[in-house]
C-alpha cells in the first residue's frame, strides 16, 4: 500500500499545475464570464484528454488514479467543469463503449478536439437516473436537463436516458448541434461555470449513440461514480485553497500590533481547517482509487469521499472568509468565487445528504452479507 503519489504522478501534476497557473491566473476582480472556457487549450496541448485513452486511439492509457493530483488542482484553480466532464466521459467510453464507439470518439477526445458536457441534472428529479424524465422512445429523445456546464462550448452532450418501455437506463452521446437540441443560458450562483439548460425535443437518436449496450445500467452508474469521485477532488482542491489562503492571511494581517494568526481564535480555526482538509484528502484519494479499481467498494468509496469533501469545502469557504474579516467579503479578493464554485460542485453528482444515505444503505447491505462486515473492516 502506498498513499503517496509516485514520481510520474507528481511530474504530471506539476506540468498541469504550471499550465493552469498560466491559463487561469486568479485575477480576483471578476469572475470569468459564462463564455470563457480558458484552460481547455492548455490542457489539450498537454495531452491531458488522452490520459485515460488507450494508446491505440492516441492516448496514454493511464489509470483514473493518476488523475488524483490533477483533479485536485483543477478544483483549486476553479478550472472549467467541462474538463472534468470530458475526462469522465473518456473513462466511460473506454469501459463501456463498443469498439466502433471508441474509434469514433476517443481519438478526437485525446487530441482535445472533442469536448463532452455531462448533462445529469433535471429540475424535478434527484440524482437517480431511474427517476428522471428524460426518456428515449421509438428512437426519439425528449426531456430537459439543467446546469450543464459550458454546454455551448462542447461538441457533444453525454446524458443518462431512460427507455420509455421500462427501467433500463443507458448513457446517450448527443451532438450539441443535433436538431431538437436547444441551449439556454442559465443564471447561476457561479457565472464562471457557463451553465445552460438543455431542452431535448424529439431528438433523433441512432442506436449507436447509446453507451453501455452490453452492460445496461452499469455505464450510467459508472459515470456517476467517476464524476462523483472526481468532484470530491475538486471540492478538496477548493477546501485546500481556502485553508491555505486563510493561513497566509493570518500570518500577514496585523491587528492589535500582532499578526492575527497569533490569536487562538484564528489559529485554531486554521488548525481545524487543516485537520478537515487532511481528512478529506485521505477520503478523496481513496475514493478515486477505489473507483479506478472498480471493485465492490467503489460506489461506497465515491459516496464517502463526495459527502465528506463537499462538507469540508463548505466549512473551509465559510471559515476562510471569516479569517479574512472585512476583506473576506469583498468581490475584489475573490474568495466568493470558491464559495460559489463549492456550492455548484456540491450540488452536482449527488449532494452530501444523497451520498450519506447511500453510504449508510451500502454499509447495512454489506453487514447483512455474512462475514462481509469483517471482510470490509480488514480490506
Amino acid at each position: 500500500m502506498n498513499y503517496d503519489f509516485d514520481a510520474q504522478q507528481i511530474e504530471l501534476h506539476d506540468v498541469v499545475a504550471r499550465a493552469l497557473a498560466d491559463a487561469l491566473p486568479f485575477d480576483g476582480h471578476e469572475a470569468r464570464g459564462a463564455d470563457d472556457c480558458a484552460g481547455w487549450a492548455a490542457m489539450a496541448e498537454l495531452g491531458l484528454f488522452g490520459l485515460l485513452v488507450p494508446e491505440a486511439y492516441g492516448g496514454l492509457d493511464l489509470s483514473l488514479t493518476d488523475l488524483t493530483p490533477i483533479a485536485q488542482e483543477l478544483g483549486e484553480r476553479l478550472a472549467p467543469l467541462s474538463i472534468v466532464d470530458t475526462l469522465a466521459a473518456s473513462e466511460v467510453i473506454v469501459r463501456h463503449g463498443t469498439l466502433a464507439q471508441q474509434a469514433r470518439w476517443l481519438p478526437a477526445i485525446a487530441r482535445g478536439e472533442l469536448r463532452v458536457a455531462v448533462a445529469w441534472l433535471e429540475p424535478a428529479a434527484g440524482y437517480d437516473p431511474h427517476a428522471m424524465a428524460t426518456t428515449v422512445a421509438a428512437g426519439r429523445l425528449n426531456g430537459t436537463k439543467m446546469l450543464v456546464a459550458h454546454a455551448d462550448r462542447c461538441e457533444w452532450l453525454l446524458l443518462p436516458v431512460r427507455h420509455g418501455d421500462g427501467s433500463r437506463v443507458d448513457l446517450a452521446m448527443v451532438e450539441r448541434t443535433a436538431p431538437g437540441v436547444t441551449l439556454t443560458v442559465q443564471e447561476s450562483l457561479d457565472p464562471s461555470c457557463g451553465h445552460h439548460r438543455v431542452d431535448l425535443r424529439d431528438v433523433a437518436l441512432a442506436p449507436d449513440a447509446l453507451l453501455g449496450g452490453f452492460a445496461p445500467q452499469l455505464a450510467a452508474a459508472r459515470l456517476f461514480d467517476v464524476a462523483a469521485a472526481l468532484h470530491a477532488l475538486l471540492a478538496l482542491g477548493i477546501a485546500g485553497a481556502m485553508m491555505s489562503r486563510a493561513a497566509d492571511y493570518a500570518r500577514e494581517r496585523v491587528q492589535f500590533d500582532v499578526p492575527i494568526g497569533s490569536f487562538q481564535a484564528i489559529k485554531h480555526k486554521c488548525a481545524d481547517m487543516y485537520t478537515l482538509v487532511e481528512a478529506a484528502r485521505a477520503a478523496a484519494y481513496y475514493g478515486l482509487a477505489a473507483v479506478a479499481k472498480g471493485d465492490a467498494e467503489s460506489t461506497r468509496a465515491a459516496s464517502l469521499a463526495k459527502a465528506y469533501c463537499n462538507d469540508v469545502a463548505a466549512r473551509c469557504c465559510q471559515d476562510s472568509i471569516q479569517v479574512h474579516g472585512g476583506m473576506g467579503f469583498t468581490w475584489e479578493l475573490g474568495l466568493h468565487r470558491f464559495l460559489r464554485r463549492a456550492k455548484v460542485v456540491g450540488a452536482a453528482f449527488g449532494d452530501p445528504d444523497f451520498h450519506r444515505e447511500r453510504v449508510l444503505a451500502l454499509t447495512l447491505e454489506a453487514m447483512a452479507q455474512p462475514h462481509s462486515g469483517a471482510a470490509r473492516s480488514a480490506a
Partner: protein
Amino acid sequence: MDFARTPAEEEFRTALRTWLAGALPAGWGETVFEPEGEDARAQFRIEWEKTLHRGGWACIHWPREYGGRDASQVEQAIYAEELARARVPEGINIIGRNLAGSTLLAHGTEAQKQRFLPRIIACEEVWCQGFSEPGAGSDLASVRTRAELDGDHFVVNGQKVWTSYAQYSQWCFALVRTDPSVKKHAGLTFLLIDMTSPGVSTRPLKQISGENEFNETFFDNVRVPVENVVGEINGGWRIAMTTLAHERGPEDALGRQIRFKQELELLLETLSGLQRDGRPVIEQANVRQKLAQSVIELDIMRLSALRQLSQYENGMARGAEASANKLYWSHVAQDFFERAIDALGPLAPLAGHDPLAVGGGRFQLSYLQSRAFSIYSGSSEIQRNIIGERILGLPR
C-alpha cells in the same frame, strides 16, 4: 413575567398597521416592488423614509421634542415587527436614525441636537459611519485617520472603509485620531464630517454578493469645524462604544428576524411545492430536521430580542449583552441560509431570474449576503472577547 400585551400596546399596533396600509402603494409586496437599479432603489428608499416622517412614524423612540414619540421598548418592538411584516422598504438612513441619532441624543450638545436631529428624522440628510479602516478592523482603536487642529477647525486626512451608503450620504460620523502621542484608545475623537466638504471622495466597494452597499471613503485635508466634535476631544472611544451597543442591539435584530422568517416561510412553501423524485421535498425527514432547527433558532432570535428590550424597559443599562445578541443571530442566520440553499439540492445553484430557479432565486442572494453577518458590526471573534471579558469576567 407577563407575555400579554396591554390594550394600549394593541392600540399602538392597530394605528401603525392602519397607517402602513394607507401609506404603502397599492399591491405593495405582491405586484409592486422596489426599483431594481441600486441608485433608483436608494432614491425610492429615501422617499419612503420621508413618507414615514410625514406620517409621524419616523424615529419613534426619540423624545417628542425632537419629533419622536417617546416610544417604549415594547412599542419599538411592535414597530420593528409591523414594518417588517408589511415588507416596507429597508431604511437607507438607518445609520442616521439609529446610530447618529442615538449617539447625539446621548452625548450631543443641545446645539448639535437642534442642528442635526430634525434633518435626520426628515431624511433630509443621510448619514454614514466612518469607523473601520484598512488597518483598523477588529482592532478599531488603531484608526489612523488624523485630525489636526488648525484654528477652530480640524484638518482630516486618511481613509475609511465599509462606509455603507456613503455615496448617498450628506454626513459621516467618524472616529479620528487627534492625539497620536497617547495610547491608542485615549487619542480618538468622535467627529461629524460634512460629506460635501472639499477633499472627501468615495469609491464603491463591491461585495461578494455583487452588490455595492459599501464604499471606501477618503479624506484629503478636509476641514471640519471644532463644534462638530461629539463629547470631549480625545474622548471618542467611549462614545463609539455607545454607538456600537446600539448597532448590535435588539431593535436591529427584531426587524431582521421578521425578514429572515419571511424567507423561511417562503422556503417552506417552496419545498412544499417542489417535487423531487415524485414527492414533495418537505416530506423528507432529514430536510425537516434541519429546517426545524432554523425555525426554532429564528423564533428564539425574536424571543431573545424581546427579552433584551424588556430588560432595558426595566431599567437595565445597555452593555455587553448586545454582543451576545449579535453573535447569536449572525450565526443562526448564516446557518439558515446555508440550510436553505442546501435543501434545494440539485436546484441550489440556480439563481436570479432563471425560470427554473425556485423562490425567485432569492435564497442564493441571501446566502451570499449572509456570509458577512459574522464579520460586520464587530466580528464574532470580537463579540466573544467582549462577552468573555465584560460579562463573564475572564481576564484579557
